[in-house]
């Protein structure tokens, strides 16, 4: 057992840095950028935790993980117990340990944040989950009586998986319906291998299947079966089908051959493994000079993917300034290290092509910042006559997604708002139809993995209450 160190010493120590692949190496491969803490590094970092009497980090964690407790177990070198502690509240620890916004959640409220040295909670969570996977430690289903009620979950992304796992732990009979050939939703089709290895996603989904959740792939709800039909066979339904429909700029030239939605570019690269073409059959454009429009996490993922596929120059083109960039600071930092070229205050107005429909450039306007808009950010205003052309041979639109209407179109009485997202009660995730709940991006629009996880948790609780009090869709 590692020893507890005096408080003074804890305050003095610095954050243990995360070992990472060097930028010049990683731009040539799809392997994970951060390498993960070693056992010694994890213990060293865990020892810094002050074990506050009234810990703020737990309240800061959307999944409500008992952070001080699992960190204490790390100090004690009892990694298996640390894992089981996290698993009580978080069904996807290796995933959330990687892609959660710790810097805005648990870490920002850490008492050591004031000294600029918050505990690296995400890195510790990741270490524990990776250690458990490598050492064959598994969560167990609590010994409770299995219940007879059946719940259908539409979509196997973070919201659907979380809701399914939480309900399975309560004893319900759960079936997830997934439209694609692999479960995981955005975790497998959207987030690149170098940020979230697919073998890890597969493993954590397998763990959820082991506690009794059935996952049916290749099953498009809304095409094979309507939600209305589903409601005849299940007692409750959780709709977590994701936002899923790509948004475009609606500028001339956007249907040229080498213009992608980020969804298409990332689905080809991640889900279909086009970076291993021709071993895998799905092709992808290898641009020499790629432009990604937008500056969110998906844009960073797209630009860094283009680079790894072989682009000599990979641009991020964003209409606002650096200050307004919505991507995680860590992602922006990684992108900059890798040589991604940022073109701020730049608005694409036209994509230029040759007679065969291939992209040869993108015409843009310079912008300046005006008064704040309704989002509170300063509104970008085009500077007339400032047109210029960026020489590129492929463009990726990473400006967000909108609601895919396939599922909603088959759900009578489940109302959507003007953007096509399901209308839900904030506290229960209940839709306008009793017994049907919804969460994740099909409620929020393009949001984060952790917000989807939270929706899944909240919905699971509400569904349990609904079923416990005798509610059922089948009675209707």
């Amino acid at each position, binding site marked *: 057992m590692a020893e507890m160190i005096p408080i003074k010493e804890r305050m003095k120590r610095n954050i243990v840095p995360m070992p990472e692949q060097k930028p010049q190496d990683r731009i040539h491969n799809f392997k994970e950028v951060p390498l993960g803490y070693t056992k010694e590094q994890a213990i060293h970092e865990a020892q810094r935790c002050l074990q506050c009497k009234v810990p703020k980090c737990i309240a800061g964690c959307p999944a409500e993980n008992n952070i001080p407790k699992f960190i204490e177990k790390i100090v004690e070198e009892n990694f298996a117990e640390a894992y089981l502690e996290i698993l009580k509240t978080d069904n996807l620890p290796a995933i959330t340990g990687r892609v959660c916004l710790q810097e805005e959640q648990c870490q920002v409220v850490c008492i050591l944040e004031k000294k600029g040295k918050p505990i690296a909670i995400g890195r510790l969570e990741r270490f524990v989950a990776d250690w458990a996977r490598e050492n064959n430690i598994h969560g167990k289903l609590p010994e409770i009586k299995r219940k007879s009620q059946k719940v259908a979950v539409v979509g196997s992304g973070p919201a659907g998986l979380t809701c399914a796992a939480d309900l399975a732990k309560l004893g319900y009979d759960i079936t997830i319906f997934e439209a694609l050939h692999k479960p995981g939703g955005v975790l497998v089709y959207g987030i690149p291998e170098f940020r979230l290895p697919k073998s890890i996603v597969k493993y954590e989904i397998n763990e959820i299947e082991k506690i009794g959740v059935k996952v049916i792939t290749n099953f498009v709800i809304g095409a094979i079966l309507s939600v209305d039909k589903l409601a005849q066979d299940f007692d409750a339904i959780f709709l977590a089908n994701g936002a899923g429909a790509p948004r*475009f700029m609606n500028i001339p030239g956007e249907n040229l051959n080498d213009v992608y939605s980020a969804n298409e570019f990332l689905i080809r690269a991640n889900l*279909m493994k086009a970076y291993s073409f021709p071993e895998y059959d799905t092709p992808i454009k290898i641009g020499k000079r790629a432009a990604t429009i937008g500056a969110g996490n998906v844009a960073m993922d797209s630009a860094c993917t283009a680079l790894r596929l072989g682009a000599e120059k990979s641009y991020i083109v964003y209409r606002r300034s650096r200050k307004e960039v919505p991507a995680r600071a860590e992602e922006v930092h990684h992108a900059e290290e890798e040589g991604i070229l940022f073109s701020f205050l730049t608005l694409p107005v036209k994509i230029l092509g040759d007679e065969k429909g291939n992209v040869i450039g993108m015409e843009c306007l310079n912008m300046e910042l005006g008064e704040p808009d309704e989002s509170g950010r300063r509104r970008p205003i085009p500077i007339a006559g400032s047109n210029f052309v960026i020489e590129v041979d492929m463009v990726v639109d990473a400006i967000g997604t909108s609601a895919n209407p396939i599922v909603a179109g088959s759900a009578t009485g489940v109302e959507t708002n003007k953007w096509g997202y399901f209308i839900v009660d904030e506290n229960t995730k209940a839709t306008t139809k009793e017994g049907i709940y919804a969460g994740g991006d099909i409620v929020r629009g393009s949001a984060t993995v952790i917000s989807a996880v939270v929706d899944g948790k909240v919905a699971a609780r509400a569904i349990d209450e609904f079923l416990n009090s005798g509610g059922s869709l089948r009675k209707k």
Partner: protein
Amino acid sequence: MYKIVKNEKLNEIIYSMWIEAPEVALSVQPGQFIILMITEKGERIPLTVADFNRERGLIRIVFQIVGKTSEELSTLEEGDELYSFIGPLGKKTEIENYGTVITVGGGTGIACIHSIARALKEAGNKVISIIGARNKDLIIMEEELKRVSSELIITTDDGSYGRKGFVTQALKEILDKDQAVKKVWTIGPAIMMKVTCETTKPYPVETIVSLNSVMVDGTGMCGSCRVSVGGETKFVCTDGPEFDGHLVDWEEFMNRLNRYKEQEKKSWEIYQKQVHTCKFVGGIK
């Protein structure tokens, strides 16, 4: 897994396959399509449903060898299984009793036009069908189409069967003499659909095409299949696959069909080399 219950070679390049997919067979309608993957490493390819049998839970696809995936698919045998098979995708054909209609098919499109012609006939239409190919050997499903059509006209480019010439010549003749034609469906190679639309344009006849774009998910997620129709961007997978052919931007559509030509060629060459090597090694044994 989705079991193949029959694989029939219709001619040198076209195959007909029945696949077990009970849920898809229950809900599919004429005009819709499916997406399949042969293996986990395969690509997702869209194919219009050629026929279905709800009782036996079967879907029929008809495909032509145009690259690696289709060639690999053609080698599968009864009892083999597909890794992935999803559907029914896209919107169904709008079937009504229009009066007199014409269905025009080319290549594997003949199979797709057959299920639409049959539904149109069942709805009470007088269906005139025109099918065409380069030569006699490439004409498929003649008997089946005859059964669902009041009149069947066959054209071949080389005159080896039916009338010599293109489907469009026969189509123009009918449109000239029969004012009653209300609607035309055409399914086949992009160039054939484009020329058919040019042929019908001067006549007051709505012309529906079924587009075979490059797709990935097929459920409206990726936009790979987008096409300009009447100046608006549409997704073939969710807004189509059928559109008013007179409004389709054919140049853009055909350019986008060729987006991956180079890679597709490379992939096919590698596959053929492997198959050859296997056969050669097999021979020595």
